[in-house]
């Protein structure tokens, strides 16, 4: 029985569904992964381009912001492709809010702490509650799995008034 193939197929289907609609297919990916955790190391990571760099262009570390926060994603040395599209040296952005780096061999979670930009977006505007927040960007491949080696930005801290 080739579980790796089965899981890869499930992931492709889930990624396609995510590209088409929005949140929940990530759950399908997780289910597919859970169903055979022994083959998790076989998940298809994509290699990143040498020297690729991810940065939060705005806001700046330490910024104090009133109202909605616009976060601009900067990617050097690689390109952006929507989720579900498997093209070398591309990926899509994920914004990590008040959380650490996720498991590198699994699809990035999709919840309030991990936002996916599977439509190929390169910026977002969001409401955050007043207080301090940490933000970090992480590139994921067509299946939402971080690249190898991972392409992630520095962590920044902002304060929302």
């Amino acid at each position, binding site marked *: 029985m080739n579980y790796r193939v089965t899981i890869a197929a499930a992931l492709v289907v889930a990624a396609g569904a995510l*590209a088409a609609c929005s949140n929940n297919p990530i759950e399908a990916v997780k289910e597919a992964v859970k169903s055979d955790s022994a083959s998790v190391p076989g998940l298809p990571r994509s290699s990143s381009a040498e020297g690729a760099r991810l940065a939060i*262009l705005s806001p700046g570390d330490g910024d104090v912001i009133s109202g909605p926060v616009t976060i*601009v*994603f*900067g*990617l*050097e040395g*690689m*390109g*952006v*492709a*929507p989720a579900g*599209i498997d*093209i070398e*040296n*591309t990926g899509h952005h994920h914004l990590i809010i008040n959380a650490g780096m996720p498991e590198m061999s699994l699809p990035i979670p999709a919840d309030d702490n991990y936002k996916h*930009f599977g*439509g*190929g*977006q*390169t*910026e977002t505007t969001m409401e955050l509650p007043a207080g301090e927040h940490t933000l970090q960007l992480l590139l994921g491949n067509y299946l939402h799995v971080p690249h190898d080696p991972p392409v992630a930005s520095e962590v920044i801290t902002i304060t929302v008034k």
Partner: protein
Amino acid sequence: MIKTLFIAVISSLFVATSSMALDRSPSAEGAELYFISPKSGETISGPVTVIFGLKGMGVAPAGTDKENTGHHHLLINTGLPALDLPVPADDQHKHFGKGQTQTTIELPSGKHTLQLLLGNHIHVPHNPVVASDVIEITVK
């Protein structure tokens, strides 16, 4: 005579419309293309890093036909090209078909205009067109 002219105008409109329907992709309402860097009026020494900003749509590599996405084109010292044709590819029209969102280019010293233009999977501008303001920079 007038009737012939009228028919010619109508049929050319029809041809234009049907070729647009074939090649152009609709842009998202409110989509906006802009320069994150450099800013208009800036004076720069050495290579120029140009960072592309896109609001309300996403980036997809050339050849990927997905709704509300496109890839960036940088127009250097030239105006907008024909909007119902693929963007030319030459020294004045640079394609970023691998989904790049920034570039670093060498420009001769002097003044230069830059403009960004989004193109669809076959390099044709969207409808309505998504283009940035024209900026002018000076390279020392």
